[in-house]
């Protein structure tokens, strides 16, 4: 029996879909059977982030509406054995799937997959309520900005009200240099405010833009720092204790030396 994890944030544009894609690909790379469910009905995006947009025949509303069998709507990933996508509908709205249908769908997927990861739509309306209906656990994604952290706080309250206790936090797009200069909230600042457990921190990284352009999750990019950050998060989800990555470019000494010779 697998577990259902919903990836949510409140605010849009903080990296829910990118996170979902990378966690899914990363878990599949460890040999798990994973299905990613795009619950952002009407604004389908997980397919393009994964580079699977050309393969969609049926979507989630075809499954809940009984127009096809679940197996027919699942799209197999090109690169990762064991990774599947259940795409959102593009032409319907957020009420096209009810919370009860979502629960039933999650129950069915749990029988066959180790991890069911749901990409939640932005906002706190019905789309959010549908997306979390069948979840066992929640991951909250935020960025180090006032608006994103405020919305994350609201989402944490709503998750707890919906009995999804103990959500885990991913801080995305942190810029270590700005944090060092006191111009961006640090990991500690955000944890202090939100008071939830940290699952991981992903640095701002051009590699994410490049990999998303190509439709390839950055988690498979061995050289990128964001890829490493996602690989660490994946191992933490599996229950391994992985220390938080040192986000400073270069070690302390190299920064010290660069500063001495006036490079930074």
């Amino acid at each position: 029996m697998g577990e259902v994890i919903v990836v949510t944030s409140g605010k849009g544009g903080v990296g829910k879909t990118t996170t979902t894609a990378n966690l899914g690909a990363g878990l599949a790379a460890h040999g798990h059977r994973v299905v990613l469910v795009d619950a952002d009905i009407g604004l389908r995006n997980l397919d393009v982030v994964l580079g699977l947009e050309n393969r969609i025949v049926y979507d989630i509303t075809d499954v809940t509406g009984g127009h096809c069998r679940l197996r027919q709507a699942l799209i197999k990933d090109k690169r990762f054995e064991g990774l599947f996508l259940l795409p959102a509908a593009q032409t319907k709205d957020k009420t096209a799937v009810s919370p009860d249908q979502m629960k039933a769908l999650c129950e069915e997927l749990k029988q066959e997959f180790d991890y069911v990861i749901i990409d939640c739509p932005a906002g706190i309306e019905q789309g959010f309520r549908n997306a979390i209906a069948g979840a066992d656990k929640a991951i909250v994604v935020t960025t180090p900005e006032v608006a994103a952290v405020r919305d994350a706080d609201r989402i944490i309250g709503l998750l707890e009200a919906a009995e999804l206790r103990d959500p885990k936090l991913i801080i995305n797009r942190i810029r270590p240099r700005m944090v060092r200069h006191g111009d961006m909230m640090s990991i500690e600042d955000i944890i202090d405010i939100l008071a939830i457990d940290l699952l991981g921190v992903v640095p701002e990284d051009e590699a994410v833009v490049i990999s998303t352009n190509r439709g390839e999750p950055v988690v498979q990019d061995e050289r990128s720092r964001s890829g490493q950050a996602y690989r660490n998060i994946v191992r933490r989800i599996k229950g391994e204790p992985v220390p938080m990555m040192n986000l400073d470019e270069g070690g302390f000494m190299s920064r010290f030396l660069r500063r001495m010779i006036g490079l930074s």
Partner: protein
Amino acid sequence: MLEFLNRVFGREAGGSKNVAKERLRLVLVHDRASVSPQLLQTLKTELIKVIEKYMDIDEEALEINLDSNETQVALVASIPVKGMKRVTRHLASGI
């Protein structure tokens, strides 16, 4: 230790993040203190019950609100008193 090093190397955390953090803290105090009108009404009814044991109050003019300044949130009640009640014997005997 890290803070000390930051200071030595001129990376004193005095930038805009402190502004962000403080603004966020205040806005969250308000967000988290959001109280439904229904809850406020229940509170009002029960408050009246308690106070009426001791004083004659003007129920119609009673006002209860959540108020906040820059550092805290307060429950502010304005309760016009018409007169004192004669405290009953068992209350006076110290219960």
